[in-house]
């Protein structure tokens, strides 16, 4: 039988599903997907996106979640169980480091959303002649304020994680995700009833079929399908490790998580673009869309206070549930590796992230650089490692039989194995090669330095873990068998 350690479990199915979907729905769904859709052929992009979502994200999430549920351990414990007591546990450390680096700058984005939620509460956007561009400029150039908001963000994450899986993450997600849903629906209804709003929906949905023949459309769809679902970052694995042995994975952890996550993107299209077009704002993405364009549009709408409040509180919730999930990967792993209390693990990991996040909070160029390195190579490499581990080392066939189809609401057939073994790893290698090719001439310094860091990280982590394994774990389990 599989040897597992005693650990906390999700309190309810609804709580697990909300926590998982909250982990995946972040800033990208709201400020990126609508624009990427409109820019890449509208309906044609969405078709490419759906195909890739069902072919890659759904099966990938099923695999990652079922591996976590099988081992019932965090990242390093899982890798130790699969690879044995050797240097390859360092591959888990690589993923953990990418997570911590990702969270170090994502915390700044959470800080931005807290700051704008505060301004929405005090009604700044509805003041006469309020200049949202000036507010964003003043905020982003104020180092102390940026570091302060990063600190507030990390304190909030710490507070929630201290309450545990059930009492913290699950309880918050059960409130935050329904509120986010209702907020976006309310804004969407208001948005589509504005004069000129239909042009926004036309921009987003009008299909330009020739885009389906373009490689760029498929690459954009691939990037969105992979990165917005958080596949391979260790989040699904960590959350899956808190599932019961007979809980369903394929329908909840796979289909609902991937499709539900994209459903929020669709909701964001309805909420954002009608307003953007109704107010004659040029469609864009990222911070400028949320904090300048939309904030300005809310100020000019009837009942703007309510719409701004709903949007920015919802945006904060989307970011916060993602931040909690990214941080939990480190907390779970640290707690198990150090055999310490959850409180100590939370304080240590959050403290490390807070310290590492200060440079990104002080300088947006650092944030941009880290996002470039982690987004272009770090996360695809993490996904590649996890899929290789599931498909080849653990054996996708054995995992499907033992864990994935156990208690399943949906039977997963054999072809799932070839997706995990061949399709996703090939796509990941292709993505990394493409990013290298496309960035090398445009940003050679960033590209070479980023690659150098990554190239060094893998052997360094393997070396660290081989030294640690020898002293700390004299015996371990490989696939449930003692070795």
């Amino acid at each position: 039988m599989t040897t597992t350690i005693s650990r906390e479990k999700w309190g309810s199915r609804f709580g697990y599903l909300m926590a998982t979907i909250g982990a995946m729905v972040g800033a990208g769904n709201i400020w990126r997907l609508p624009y990427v859709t409109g820019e890449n052929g509208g309906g044609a992009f969405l078709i490419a996106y759906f195909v890739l979502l069902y072919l890659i994200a759904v099966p990938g999430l099923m695999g990652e979640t079922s591996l976590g549920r099988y081992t019932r351990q965090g990242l390093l414990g899982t890798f130790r169980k699969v690879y044995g007591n050797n240097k390859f546990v360092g591959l888990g450390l690589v993923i953990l480091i990418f997570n911590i680096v990702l969270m170090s700058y994502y915390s700044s984005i959470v800080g931005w959303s807290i700051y704008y939620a505060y301004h929405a509460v005090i009604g700044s956007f509805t003041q006469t002649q309020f200049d949202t561009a000036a507010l964003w400029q003043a905020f982003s150039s104020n180092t102390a304020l940026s570091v302060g908001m990063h600190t507030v963000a990390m304190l909030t994450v710490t507070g929630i994680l201290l309450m545990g899986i059930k009492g913290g993450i699950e309880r918050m997600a059960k409130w935050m995700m329904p509120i986010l849903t209702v907020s976006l629906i309310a804004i969407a209804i208001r948005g589509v009833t504005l004069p000129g709003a239909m042009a926004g929906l036309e921009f987003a949905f009008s299909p330009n079929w020739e885009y389906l023949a373009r490689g760029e459309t498929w690459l954009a769809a691939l990037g969105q399908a992979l990165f917005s679902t958080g596949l391979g970052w260790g989040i699904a694995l960590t959350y899956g490790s808190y599932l019961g042995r007979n809980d369903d994975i394929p329908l909840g952890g796979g289909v609902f998580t991937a499709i539900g996550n994209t459903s929020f993107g669709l909701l964001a299209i309805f909420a954002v673009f009608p307003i953007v077009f109704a107010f004659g704002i040029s469609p864009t993405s990222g911070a400028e869309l949320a904090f300048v364009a939309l904030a300005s549009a809310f100020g000019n709408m009837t009942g703007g206070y309510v719409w701004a409040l709903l949007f920015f509180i919802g945006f904060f919730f989307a970011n916060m549930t993602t931040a909690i999930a990214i941080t939990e990967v480190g907390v779970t792993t640290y707690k198990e590796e150090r055999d310490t209390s959850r409180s100590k693990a939370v304080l240590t990991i959050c403290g490390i992230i807070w310290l590492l996040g200060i440079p990104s909070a002080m300088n947006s160029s650092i944030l941009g650089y880290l996002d470039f390195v982690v987004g272009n190579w770090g996360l695809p490499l993490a996904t590649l490692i996890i899929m290789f581990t599931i498909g080849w080392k653990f054996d996708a066939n054995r995992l499907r039989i033992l864990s994935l189809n156990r208690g399943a609401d949906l039977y997963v057939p054999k072809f799932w194995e070839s997706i995990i073994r061949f399709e996703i790893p090939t796509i990941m290698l292709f993505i990394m090669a493409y990013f290298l090719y496309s960035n090398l001439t445009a940003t050679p310094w960033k590209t070479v330095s980023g690659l150098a860091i990554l190239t060094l990280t893998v052997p360094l982590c393997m070396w660290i873990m081989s030294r640690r394994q020898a002293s700390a774990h004299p015996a371990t389990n490989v696939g449930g068998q003692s070795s």
Partner: protein
Amino acid sequence: MSIAAIIVMIVCIVALWGVASVALVYSLGQEERKLQLIKKQGSFEPYSPQALRDLNRWIEQNNTSEHAQEMRNVHEEQRAALQKCTSYFYTWNRSDIESLKEI
């Protein structure tokens, strides 16, 4: 809005919100069924007939594998649950249950 855009929009709504809503409701309902079975009889069978066939096939084909014992244990757990329980989570033929042998 153009007809094409309206069609794409409707397809998106069905393919995303429709599928996500059905998956959520169905999944919550199924887990509720599991809870009821646990309350009533303490446990239920963890594998469906199709999943059990995969498990049997694996054991047949990898009888000497280092993981074979783990798979046999899982098979035994399934067999015991099917024999002990009076209500099942998955749909079974009586003959399938009766023909299950210890491996």
